[in-house]
């Protein structure tokens, strides 16, 4: 009744190729963006902006990156944490070596360096696939973290190994990192970046390159026969995915925690991001957001529930219970809907089209 395509004619190619072809979708997206850009900074407390929204947005970005690689191009990767660390440390080196460099340039360059590293560790994908590749990408995870931990050049010879991110400003004196940055500025900066990059990712998946990725994912030999180059396709997937992960890592270290340390990008981060895209939905951009929201919010929610129930006196016990419930929920979700939250959303939309007169 409310949500349907009847009567919405597309009169031009541009209208036919739009991302949101229905007026209702456009209104919905507009509402979400309005909520995120205007309402959230006005009503959100510091806790909400800094402890919930920032990690959610940054994880979403990393999840989009991994989704491009794993969901669209079909290359299973467990090196996300390593690539994020790479982004964080390149951004740190760039920001300290060239203090005048604009923050956006720092992020883009850090992403590009990570992309180059991603291509390097993506090379094995030309020979191996599936779980063999997943284990091979673990090499990236462990090697990169070791490198940043052990080689003092990366931490500018700091003795403690924990270094704070240098303050950077966008538009003159609006600080987005460092001590002077306000939560609202940090939040809006991250949100804008994530929105732009998500839009770019969405469009990429609709372009030739995205179609090539999907062809490689579905059957690489068949794709090769119809003229898709496996090498450029796979390596471009690694490069672009690493670019996204690198920026996510840089944002994590600079904007969210304010400290650049390798410990923040342990193997668990890789698994969390993988969870996000699987629970959100492989091969969907909106699924990356849903999965990130789920994985970021779930522990907070569980923690508060356990606190409310009075079960959290022992911190260790609470964290064990949390792990248990988390594991059980993941299995539950996989059994109920292996295609992820994005699929549930799609089913809901199908239902909405016929509501309230299903035939």
């Amino acid at each position: 009744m409310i949500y349907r395509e009847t009567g919405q004619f597309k009169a031009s190619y541009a209208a036919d190729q739009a991302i949101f072809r229905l007026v209702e979708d456009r209104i919905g997206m507009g509402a979400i963006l309005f909520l995120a850009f205007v309402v959230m900074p006005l009503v959100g407390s510091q806790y909400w902006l800094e402890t919930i929204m920032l990690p959610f947005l940054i994880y979403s970005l990393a999840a989009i990156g991994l989704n491009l690689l794993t969901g669209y191009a079909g290359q299973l990767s467990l090196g996300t944490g390593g690539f994020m660390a790479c982004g964080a440390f390149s951004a740190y080196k760039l920001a300290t070596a060239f203090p005048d460099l604009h923050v956006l340039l720092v992020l883009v360059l850090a992403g590009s360096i990570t992309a180059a590293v991603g291509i390097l560790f993506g090379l094995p994908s030309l020979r191996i696939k599936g779980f063999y590749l997943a284990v091979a990408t673990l090499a990236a995870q462990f090697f990169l973290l070791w490198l940043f931990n052990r080689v003092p050049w990366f931490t500018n010879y700091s003795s403690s190994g924990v270094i704070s991110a240098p303050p950077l400003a966008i538009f003159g004196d609006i600080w987005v990192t460092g001590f002077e940055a306000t939560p609202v500025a940090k939040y809006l900066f991250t949100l804008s970046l994530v929105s732009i990059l998500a839009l770019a990712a969405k469009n990429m998946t609709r372009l030739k390159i995205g179609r090539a990725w999907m062809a490689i994912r579905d059957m690489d030999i068949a794709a090769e026969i119809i003229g898709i180059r496996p090498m450029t396709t796979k390596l471009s997937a690694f490069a672009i995915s690493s670019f996204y992960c690198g920026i996510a890592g840089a944002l994590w270290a600079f904007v969210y925690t304010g400290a650049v340390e390798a410990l923040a990008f342990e193997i668990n981060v890789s698994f969390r991001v993988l969870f996000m895209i699987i629970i959100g939905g492989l091969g969907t951009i909106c699924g990356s957001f849903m999965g990130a929201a789920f994985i970021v919010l779930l522990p907070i929610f569980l923690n508060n529930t356990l606190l409310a129930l009075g079960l959290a006196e022992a911190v260790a016990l609470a964290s064990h219970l949390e792990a248990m419930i988390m594991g059980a929920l993941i299995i539950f979700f996989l059994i109920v809907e292996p295609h992820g939250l994005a699929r549930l959303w799609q089913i809901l939309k199908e239902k909405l089209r016929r509501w309230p007169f299903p035939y």
Partner: protein
Amino acid sequence: METLEHILLQPFRSIAETPMFFLEVLIGGLMSGVMYALVALGFVLIFKASGVFNFAQGAMVLFAALFFVGFLELGWPVWLAVAGSVVVMVALAFAIERVVLRPLVNQPPIILFMATIGITFFLDGFGQTIWGSDVRRLDVGIPTTPLIVGDLYINQFDLFAAVICGLLVTVLALFFQFTPTGRALRAVADDHQAAMSVGIPLNVIWTIVWSVAGLVGLVAGVMWGSKLGVQFNLSLIALKALPVLILGGFTSVPGAIVGGLLVGAGEKVAEVFWGPLVGGAVEDWFAYVLALLFLLVRPQGLFGERIIERV
């Protein structure tokens, strides 16, 4: 040039100068490789029989060890503790087959892989909720004094581990080769559908395989537990078993052993002779990079089945 010589030549020179020390490091590495192989064995069993990449093997190792230690601390005699842990692991296999695997039949491998990560979280949390997260000492009476052969010091404990591992592999090989159940397991490993069509019950086979993997996990847990103490870290050993797996090939039991030996020896030698030159802790990643380079040359691992693909 000087640094290159430092990294490329110096370690070999020091190996040549102290051959006995090198031999000791090598043997120590091989022995710890045996321990990796023990964990990798559980992976291979499950991957062979059900095509599931069981990330939860490490968690199963920890889970089994926690229950074993817990039973011992309750004052149970060793044989009863062993029996109790075996019962727990078999029950776990039943539960996993029933709750996780059966509803996920026919899903793509990555979904099953994720499900096993879910199991990992659950088992880690569950085991530690019951038994707590303190480090527990496990002493099953294996001597740890070094054995002196000629000029070599060999850790008696490691030797014992190697013997246990050898026994386990022999028993498993006999079981796979000569019992009807073993034959059914191999049939399922070769071709699920063909096996089902000749009347082999898939669910039962899966339960058996997961039980066997649980028992292997128990052995690995007891050995690792007596070496390092029973603690959460045991769960992370699974990560070390992964490069062992891809070196040896996912589907090969001998591959798991040889891969384990290669990784163990390689990383110990690298750590002792090359580690100090680049800041130490080479052990963290050496196995992975070794496996990665190896895969570039031989994608299916040492003994893995050749992957043949058709459109």
